[in-house]
């Protein structure tokens, strides 16, 4: 009765030769997806579905991990003890998000160590938003408000992603994200209500982050060939452009509360559509940054690699200690 789950995995990972159990598996999979049910790790799933998920979830995890850096930068320079404590809690949450997501990816058969390797070797991608620098304190506000805000827009529908472990990780993450967005908003609000210099600092920062935040939703639908398949698999629930529109509709009134402007003269309420219109984005820049030619790509990767290498002796020592403890338990049992 009891089974070694790796056996089922082996067959699911195998070549695309269609066996009887494959077609039965495919039928069951299609049935579950059609009924908007969840797929769980031991279920049969198409190779392409597994690969898509591994890519998406691990990229998502990498983004959370790399995402600690632009803000980690400011922990020692936070303007007050309270802000420092908040920032540390937020950065720690992002580490947690990365780990929840790595675990979800691991259920698909990919190892943690391999994912780390792929990240530091530059093979794996992560969200290009984290390749922008954070030269001012106001950037902590803009990141929380705009970057975490966009992430929430993206992530809330992912709580219903068809792959169970991914959805469950997203539920946990979304619960934690709302504090991230609010603390960022508050930073900007305080700066905006402060001195003229503080307000200018907030405005300058929002000007830099606005467009990159909108690009976080990915290319326009017409240039996003994989979206349709992801939507058919119930991984993705809304198109890139739909999510981007939802985000714009949210932040325009929020910017008014902040007393700041968004750097897009095309923003205007469209009565007919019931949405805010907004201007075109510079997608050439997006692809440049994605390809690793953004302002901070090299620094981010280098720091991640350095941290991994600096931690090698800790990992080795912990593994050696664990092995010795294990050996002494075995010895005690034997004697």
């Amino acid at each position, binding site marked *: *009765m*009891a*089974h*070694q*789950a*790796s056996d*089922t*995995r082996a067959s699911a*990972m195998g070549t695309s030769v269609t066996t009887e*159990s494959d077609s039965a598996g495919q039928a069951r999979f299609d049935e579950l997806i059609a009924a908007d049910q969840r797929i*769980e*790790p*031991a*279920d049969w799933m198409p190779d392409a579905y597994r690969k898509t998920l591994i890519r998406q979830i691990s990229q998502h995890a990498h983004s959370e991990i790399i995402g600690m850096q632009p803000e980690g930068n400011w922990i020692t320079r936070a303007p007050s003890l309270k802000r420092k404590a908040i920032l540390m*809690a937020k950065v*720690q*949450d992002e580490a*947690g998000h990365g*780990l*929840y997501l790595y*675990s979800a990816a*691991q*259920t*698909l*058969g*990919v*190892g*943690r*160590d*391999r994912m780390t390797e792929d990240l530091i070797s530059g093979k794996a991608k992560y969200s290009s938003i984290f390749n922008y620098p954070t030269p001012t304190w106001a950037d902590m506000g803009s990141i929380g408000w705009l970057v975490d805000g966009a992430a929430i827009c993206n992530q809330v529908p992912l709580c219903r992603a068809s792959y*169970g*472990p991914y959805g*469950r*990780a997203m539920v*946990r993450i979304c619960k*934690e994200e709302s504090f991230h967005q609010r603390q960022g908003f508050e930073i900007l609000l305080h700066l905006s209500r402060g001195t003229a210099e503080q307000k200018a600092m907030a405005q300058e920062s929002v000007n830099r982050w606005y467009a990159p935040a909108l690009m976080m939703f990915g290319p326009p639908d017409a240039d996003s060939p994989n979206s349709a398949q992801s939507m058919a698999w119930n991984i993705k629930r809304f198109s890139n452009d739909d999510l981007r529109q939802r985000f714009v509709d949210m932040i325009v009134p929020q910017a008014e509360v902040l007393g700041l402007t968004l750097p897009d003269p095309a923003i205007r309420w469209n009565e007919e559509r019931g949405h805010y219109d907004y201007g075109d984005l510079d997608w050439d820049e997006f692809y440049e940054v994605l390809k690793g030619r953004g302002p901070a790509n090299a620094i981010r990767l280098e720091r991640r690699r350095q941290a991994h290498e600096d931690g090698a002796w800790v*990992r080795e020592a*912990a*593994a050696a*200690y*664990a092995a010795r*403890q*294990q050996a002494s338990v075995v010895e005690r049992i034997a004697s």
Partner: protein
Amino acid sequence: MSKKPVAAATDTMTDTATVQDADVWPLWEVFVRSSRGLSHLHAGSLNAPDAEMAVRNARDLYTRRNEGVSIWVVPSSAITASDPDEKDAFFESPRGKEYRHASYYTESEGVKHL
């Protein structure tokens, strides 16, 4: 017939038993008791060199906001799962066994405290 999802603990068994790539540190399943009087529920998994480190990491990872008063960690490799392919044969059909549920007994309708 109840259509509740299976308990979280069952779900862990399939969650991580599928890991194929070998990692230096083994994988652990984490169970958290959110408050006294409740069961430990599966929270997720993590890699750690030994049980003690797994408990400490689990605290940092899964209880940053008072989510728990107690943590269990179990090596993922120690979990034995039912065979997902045997689902129908293994989990006996509840069909025709409505009499196992109170709702089957309708003649007592309107009678108080029953």
